[in-house]
């Protein structure tokens, strides 16, 4: 059994209203920035999973992403493996 660390990115689907992204974009003129557009704001979840293999651990993360971290009707998600040096050192 090993421990694997992942990050899950959750983003509003294209075409779904993203009021946070719109508000961020609307504030940019206050920073004197006029070259930025199409701002979308999402969520990032990092987690460690015990598993027999990276594939088995990833399958757990994908299930959580689909059932909990994202609402598939309005959000899409992607999973990435991460290194865990800081956490190893802390144990």
């Amino acid at each position, binding site marked *: 059994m090993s421990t694997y660390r992942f990050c899950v990115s959750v983003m509003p689907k294209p075409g*779904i*209203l993203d*009021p*946070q992204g719109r*508000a961020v974009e609307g504030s940019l003129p206050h920073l004197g920035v006029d070259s930025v557009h199409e701002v979308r704001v999402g*969520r990032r979840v990092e987690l460690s999973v015990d598993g027999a293999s990276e594939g088995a651990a990833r399958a757990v993360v994908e299930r959580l992403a689909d059932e*909990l*971290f994202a*609402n598939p*009707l*309005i959000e899409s998600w992607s999973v990435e493996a991460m290194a865990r040096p800081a956490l190893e050192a802390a144990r």
Partner: protein
Amino acid sequence: MKVGVVVFPGSNCDRDAIHAARLAGAQAEPLWHEDPDLHGADAVILPGGFAYGDYLRAGALARFSPIMGSVREHAERGGLVLGICNGFQVLAEAGLVPGALLRNASLRFEHRWVRLTVTRRDTAFTSAIPPDVTLLMPVAHGEGCYTSPDDKLDALEARGGVLFRYVGPEGNPNGSARDVAGVLSERENVCGLMPHPERASERLLGSDDGLLLLRSLVTSAGQRLAAA
């Protein structure tokens, strides 16, 4: 006829819902979310509030509370379920009613009186509402912007699943698609709405229009009980 009002950690309209259900003629009791037993409730209300602090997404964590398995079974047996505000968000996350509730288009917490048109009177939630009456009720939410893909909205409207819409000068408080304020499940025994009928259940509160909805629920559940 007994109404069970689910209490999640962070629910804050549970006592109001119990009070209003009693005014509507029901026995009403709280149901703690960790206890999967519905204690003989004939109808279930998921009340307003901020279950689990609205963390992740409103309703996303409450959906997995132990009682929700029993609420789902109750709904699958044809039992009546009403979700109010945060309760609507929980029902949507659980897939018991269609659609999802996004952050209000204004990005603000909207708390004000709204007016609702009732599209049908032949449902368990609207049978006691007189024809041509619109309902004055308050909303108080940050995530009430109803959304669903266009084809699903078309299908929802076509089957009469949009039960309440925002109308009149009070307007649509949250940017909700097609002014949707409340929807019905496909089997028409589960209803979710953002406005608060329990906060409009006595004249003293500014309106008792919400009592018409709760009376419909209580009467319908009583009739089903008598027929069973």
